[in-house]
């Protein structure tokens, strides 16, 4: 029973981080219509700059702000200077460019800071309390609260704010957006900036657990990708539900079957969802006028 409880509780904790990684991908998909494969590398740059600030004597607060700020600016630069201009050639070249950007950033990081993993500070290493027989640390609590706030904020932003609604409209009906004078490039840039900052926040949760290397955030983004395929590419809520489900499923598989089978089970679940609901559990089926 303890093992089951621990698997579920810790699965939820890590699942929320998966969901957060998926949310960043959803934000760009909602405005631009494709997935960015550079978000982990963008976060890595922020994390390494943040780590430098920490080693220079900055506290955790300054480190966190630095990570988020650098990731936000870099996300905006990548989107504004490379991918959004490339969209005039289609979504595929723009999406492929994010792979190129990610590889370039990763290559530069490998040359400049090296590929060895290194410790990254966490908000607190102290234990908070026991929950269902599982000891949760303050890092877990802060991570979950921050994630909850981000999901509520994103939900409000996309559902209630004029900018958020316009961002959804831009990708949904490009022609209407143009005739209505919606500043689509500016809104897409906002999407990249928001996704960049989300990558930074994600990195702050991931780096203390996996330790920091140029690929550590990318390792986790694989689960985020899996979450949005299962949840639906255009659904923030879907990313949340699918992320938590993936976290629990991973832990149960690891505890009761075989840890080596976790990726197999996840990809099988993803394929199953794709076969049954190609737009994901919470994604909307696109209507095409014929």
């Amino acid at each position, binding site marked *: 029973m303890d093992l089951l409880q621990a698997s579920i509780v810790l699965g939820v904790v890590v699942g929320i981080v998966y969901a957060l990684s998926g949310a960043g991908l959803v934000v760009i998909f909602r405005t631009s219509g494709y997935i960015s494969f550079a978000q982990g590398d963008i976060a890595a740059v922020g994390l390494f700059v943040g780590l430098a600030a920490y080693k220079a004597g900055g506290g955790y607060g300054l480190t966190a702000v630095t990570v988020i700020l650098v990731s936000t600016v870099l996300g905006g630069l990548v989107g504004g200077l490379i991918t959004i201009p490339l969209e005039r050639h289609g979504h595929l070249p723009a999406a492929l460019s994010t792979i190129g950007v990610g590889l370039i950033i990763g290559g530069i990081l490998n040359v400049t800071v090296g590929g060895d993993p290194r410790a990254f500070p966490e908000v607190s290493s102290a234990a908070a309390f026991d929950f269902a027989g599982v000891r949760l640390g303050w890092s877990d609590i802060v991570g979950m609260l921050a994630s909850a706030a981000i999901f509520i904020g994103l939900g409000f932003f996309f559902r209630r704010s*004029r900018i958020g609604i316009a961002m959804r409209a831009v990708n949904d*009906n490009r022609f209407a957006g143009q*005739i*209505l004078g*919606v500043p689509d490039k500016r809104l897409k840039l906002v999407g990249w900036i928001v996704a960049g900052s989300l990558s930074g926040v994600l990195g702050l949760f991931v780096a203390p657990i996996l330790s920091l290397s140029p690929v550590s955030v990318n390792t986790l983004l694989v689960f985020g990708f899996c979450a949005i395929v299962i949840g639906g590419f255009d659904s923030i809520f879907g990313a949340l539900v699918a992320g938590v489900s993936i976290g629990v499923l991973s832990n149960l598989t690891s505890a009761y079957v075989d840890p080596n089978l976790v990726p197999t089970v996840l990809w099988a679940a993803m394929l199953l969802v794709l076969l049954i609901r190609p737009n994901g559990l919470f994604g*909307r089926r696109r*209507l095409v006028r014929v």
Partner: protein
Amino acid sequence: MTTGLEVRDLTMTFSGVDALAQVSFSIGEGVWLGLIGPNGSGKSTMLNVLSGLYRPRAGSVVMNGHDLQAVRARHRIRQGLSRTFQHPQLAASLTILENVMVGAAHRPTAEAPSPPASDSGAEWLRRLGCDEYAEHLPSEAPYGVQKLAEVARALMSAPSLLLLDEPAAGLSARERVDLVAALKEIRRHRPTLTLCLVEHDVGLVASLCSELAVLSAGRLIANGPTQTVLADEAVKVAYLGTRSTHDATP
């Protein structure tokens, strides 16, 4: 400064064929003009030129004293020009209300604070009689509601000139009655709004518009007060495709 819309010698050519040939007419501020004509007469082409989707070969479009020639389609809404389409161009994943709200998204928030409650998207939907579908997706709403939602969206930009492209096309008789009621409601709340209505239903146009312009094979064959134009023999011949019974009588 001339207010309203002035079209001067507009010529639009597709593959050497004149879709519009030296068409000139004007619409005074607050006037509702019906643009009618048989299929292929150039009505939709005219709306596409006015809204900037097509670039004319010759001629000019002047709105409230400003020549729109150099103004791209996406920027004409800032000049106060808004339009709808024959087939509603709504975002499929946005609710009806969210689609309407996008009509006010062309200006940054700092320039355009949220509209007053009296001109909010919800209020326009209520006035046009389709507020019960506000939270539905377009695919869940009747076609008539989709068309009215597009009108409401166009009104959210607070236009001085509204172009409606066949708003009654595809509607049932009941939906046409609702459409006329909705358009009259718009006139009541926006008396200074200038409107250009492209429509096949001449009876509907005559019930709403004080002026008519008639196109035939890309040429303007009549323009003036509605009743005068409808009594014009050239209009009867061109629009109905036959001579009137009066002429046919020996």
